[in-house]
């Protein structure tokens, strides 16, 4: 499993590269507004780009039917978190919903 350690090392370097340069430069000038806006939008784009295909794509095909337990779980976690419910509580309820639907299905 040295492949996993290789990936961890790469992740550590990539992440340090997001933390150290600006910090060590002791930047006097703030970042330009467009760059700030872009950096603020990146997580807003990356997180749905990660999550939604995990829910909707099964074996290379769209699984949009209501028989997909993950779809219900996704709706539950999204609505709860958007209404200000604590992150872990929202996730726990959604995981419970998915487990229940799988047990019933």
């Amino acid at each position, binding site marked *: 499993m040295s492949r996993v350690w290789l990936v961890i090392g*790469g*992740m550590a370097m990539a992440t340090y*590269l997001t933390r150290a340069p600006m910090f060590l430069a002791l930047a006097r000038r703030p970042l330009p507004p467009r760059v700030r806006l872009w950096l603020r939008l990146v*997580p807003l784009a990356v997180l749905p780009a990660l999550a939604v295909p995990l829910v909707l794509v099964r074996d290379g095909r769209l699984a949009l039917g209501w028989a997909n337990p993950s779809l219900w779980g996704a709706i539950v976690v999204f609505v709860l978190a958007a209404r200000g419910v604590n992150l872990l509580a929202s996730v726990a309820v959604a995981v419970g919903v998915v487990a229940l639907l799988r047990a019933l299905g």
Partner: protein
Amino acid sequence: MTFRDGVVASLALVPSVFVYGTVFGGLAVQAGLTAAQTLGMSVLVFAGASQFVAVPMLAAGAPALAIVITTYVVNMRHYLMAATLAPSFRGFPRRWLALIAHVINDESFAVAVARSRPPDPWVYLGSAAAISGSFVGGVGVGVVLGGLVERPERYGLDFAFPAVFLALVAMQLRRRSDWLVAVGAAVLATALALVLPGNWHIVVAGLVVSALGALVLPAEESA
């Protein structure tokens, strides 16, 4: 303001950071990582969201480069925090700075910025100590607990990964333009996932849609 103030101001966050670590530790072990790998990742990378991203990719055998680049993109938000924190640390030895940079995290940033503008370096350091300690401690507990659960998919635990990502997005959606970016990225990523090999749809959709947003939206929305 002192180191102690930073620790105390972070205590309210300690339980949820600890549990977040526990959930990560448990899920990572179930996904096939060893205890050492799970703890090693948490200490060396120390960025929860990107670790949640990497574990299912590792389990699915995604290419190493895809995982590393995805990690980089998920963590690009650190540039903003590092730039805001940096001026407060003028006068600190550079060797320290290289270490302190590693513990930049969302929670401590929020605590330090909420207390004073510009943020106080010692409050920030106290908070970072409390947050990193509780995260890594939580992972340690999770590694032990995760080894006890068999067939995690029976309990829907595999769904915890997309659930964490969706919750993180939902909490950040404030403006109409935020929704536009999030929905646009979701649609593009899903379409790309059907045609692109590996997990490249994440990085491509994430970068393309956020860059389009930054070009098109009014720049004052950067706050």
